[in-house]
């Protein structure tokens, strides 16, 4: 029972263009969502988060959008840079679940020069 789904295992984007990574969830109790970036042989690095009371959060080149009715969130990276090539994980938590993070399977983003 996958509560957080990232349906695209990989995504290839031209340098300078927009990268859009998608994430769907099934548990309506989730109230906090996070995106992490992971390079090989390293632990995940926190990127950006959003509370369920908001529908958008922006931090530099990174913007996360939350559509609660569709149980969908997306991460936009503009403009995409070569250093953005990594695996991106979507994670969700709920106060009722003691804030443990439930993770998607990840999307490998490849930025082409």
């Amino acid at each position, binding site marked *: 029972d996958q509560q957080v789904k990232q349906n695209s295992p990989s995504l290839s984007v031209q340098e300078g263009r927009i990268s859009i990574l998608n994430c769907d969830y099934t548990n309506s109790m989730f109230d906090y969502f996070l995106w992490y970036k992971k390079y090989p042989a390293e*632990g*995940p690095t*926190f990127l950006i988060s959003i509370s369920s009371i908001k529908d958008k959060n922006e931090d530099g080149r990174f913007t996360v959008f939350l559509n609660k009715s569709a149980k969908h969130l997306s991460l936009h990276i503009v403009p995409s840079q070569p250093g953005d090539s990594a695996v991106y*994980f979507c*994670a969700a938590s709920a106060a009722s679940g003691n*804030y*443990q993070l439930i993770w998607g*399977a*990840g999307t490998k983003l490849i930025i082409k020069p």
Partner: protein
Amino acid sequence: DAGVTQSPTHLIKTRGQHVTLRCSPISGHKSVSWYQQVLGQGPQFIFQYYEKEERGRGNFPDRFSARQFPNYSSELNVNALLLGDSALYLCASSLMSGTVNTEAFFGQGTRLTVV
């Protein structure tokens, strides 16, 4: 300022053996969580500790146990290792638990291989 540190970075064990993995959280962080990441999947929650008490447990067998020490460092123990326990074990620290959501910061992980 040191981030989350985990030891060892790599480990090879034989089926049936026991393993202890260690984690030191970021200074000032009182919550430590453990995750198992199998290749091709997202991390799976194992345990969360806050102020030395277990605050959450994932769907893992009793062979998995953990504890948190007074200095907030933590150990994850796995008994009777199975081949399927081969994975990257991640430790995360965060400021608090149970009151407000905060982002978790991860160590580089311990790569455990069971042969």
